[in-house]
């Protein structure tokens, strides 16, 4: 279960290390393929950025958005002034809501789910087997299957901040990723600590948790991605503009008549920018986190 990060053994192989002109030439088709695909993948992102900078009249006028001479930041100042009253909601508040919800769900989720996984992996308690069985069952219940009954059951909590947070803290997949990782840590380590007089809490916080950084990183990243983009639940539960998270707000903003597409795209850039920054900083963790979710799942 616990493959450590796979190293590519290909580099050790037979070929000489210095790059000859021939190898360079043989790489040209490869680079061309990489570049062409890259351009195709980047095109929609480039369009979003261009449309956020172009004048409103150019957004839906074909190639005109790429006319650099017309670019400016008016859409950004426009979106700040369009979203600045209590009836439209305030630009800063959408960010505050998304940020609070995401940080709370990720942070509390890491603590609560890793604790549960530790109890399942290491402690003996009545009902442990049953609890594990139930969690494995819940693993296949997608949120979509319970969204409608939750909409009814928790209707009194509509337009609150907590209803955007609390339902997503406990997460069967997170527990499962932690559980598999903890099971891979040799029990002799716990034994040694117990000999030294550590109690289960001490063993967890001071030994197991610090050893499990990759699992924490995977869970944090998967939760972060789902939560920052969360849409279905806010659609059902949030109508108050002051409690709208970013993805819901951009759909509301795009649905306004007449639509201000330049401003919508500027809003899109602002919405995705924090995620891209986090992604660029923790790139390696992102990629390993996603990859290990499959190995474990």
């Amino acid at each position, binding site marked *: 279960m616990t493959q450590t990060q796979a190293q590519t053994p290909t580099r050790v192989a037979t070929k000489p290390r210095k790059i000859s002109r021939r190898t360079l030439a043989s790489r040209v088709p490869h680079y061309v393929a990489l570049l062409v695909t890259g351009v195709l993948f980047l095109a929609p992102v480039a369009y979003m950025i261009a449309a956020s900078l172009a004048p409103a009249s150019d957004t839906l006028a*074909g190639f005109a958005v790429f006319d650099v001479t017309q670019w400016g930041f008016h859409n950004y100042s426009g979106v700040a002034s369009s979203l600045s009253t209590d009836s439209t909601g305030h630009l800063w508040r959408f960010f505050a809501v998304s940020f609070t919800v995401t940080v709370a769900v990720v942070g509390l989720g890491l603590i609560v789910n890793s604790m549960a996984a530790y109890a399942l992996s290491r402690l003996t308690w009545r009902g442990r087997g049953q609890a594990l069985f139930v969690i494995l069952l819940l693993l296949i219940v*997608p949120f979509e299957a319970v969204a409608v009954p939750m909409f009814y059951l928790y209707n009194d909590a509509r337009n609150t901040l907590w209803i955007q947070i609390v339902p997503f803290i406990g997460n069967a997949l997170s527990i499962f990723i932690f559980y598999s990782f903890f099971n891979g840590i040799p029990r002799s380590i716990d034994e040694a600590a117990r000999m030294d007089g550590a109690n289960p809490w001490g063993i967890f916080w001071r030994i197991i948790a610090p050893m499990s950084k990759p699992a924490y990183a995977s869970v944090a990243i998967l939760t972060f991605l789902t939560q920052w983009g969360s849409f*279905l639940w806010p659609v059902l539960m949030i109508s108050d503009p002051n409690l709208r998270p970013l*993805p819901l707000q951009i*759909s509301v903003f795009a649905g306004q008549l007449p639509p201000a597409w330049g401003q919508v795209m500027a809003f899109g850039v602002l919405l995705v920018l924090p995620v891209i920054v986090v992604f660029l900083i923790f790139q390696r963790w*992102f990629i390993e986190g996603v990859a290990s979710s499959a190995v474990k799942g």
Partner: protein
Amino acid sequence: MASPALLLLALFVAVPFVAAIWFSLHNVRLGDPRAPSFMGITQYVRILTDPDVSRQFIDALLHNLIFAAVVVPVQTALALSLALLVKKSIPGVGIFRSLYFLPVVFPIALVAIIWRLILARGDQGLLNSALSFFSGGAFGSQDWLGSELTALASVIVLSIWQGCGFQMVILLAALQQVPAELYEAAELDRASAWQRFVHVTVPGIKPTLVFVALYTMILSLRVFDQIYVLAKSGGGLNEGATRTVMYEAVTAAFDENNIGRASAISVVFFVIVVILSVIQRRATSEKES
């Protein structure tokens, strides 16, 4: 130590799930002063056979199946091609890995809106402008999202663009675990690149490939955000040609306040997911043993 998580899972997954089954057997409406009345399996019979409701539901189910039938092979193949493309550690390859993964961090609601503008009808959208430019004006006034023929295809394209990088990363990790000696042995046997791919690469990553395909299939059943955004937020999406099962459940609950029917749809949705999950478990564990 497990109790906080178990309590939360009970309150927000297990209880709502049991409630879904109960609601689906009753006439439940929000704000209804009357107590919910038992109606047996009427909701299920209705969504499957009553022409007024079942046509939309069957359509929705069909759209999910078409979506899955296209996205699973295309996205898996594309993700595998990308993974092969960025597998070799040549200078600069890291940049491309990140580039192909980039759309994954985009919320799908935003992706839908970006593509709504690119796919805009007439000569407004970028795609039509490009087509008209390269075809000398012969093509390029297609209403991609509005036309019954291309609406679902458009949604499929933007979904693949957003989701592909995720699968690429999973497959890349699997590719890197295929022992290099196998490739060397194949090279000694003068196997062509294609033969190496078929006889070394594919068998080496088969469990992961199966996992990715089935995982993508379940994701295809869950499609909601992009349809909702494009249909409800001025996207001009052809609703009739793209509605999905989740879209049906949400509109039944939200627009018609019919919690009972929406719950019945949720339960049917869940049963399909379970069937696929069981197939997935079976397929992956067979490969491992």
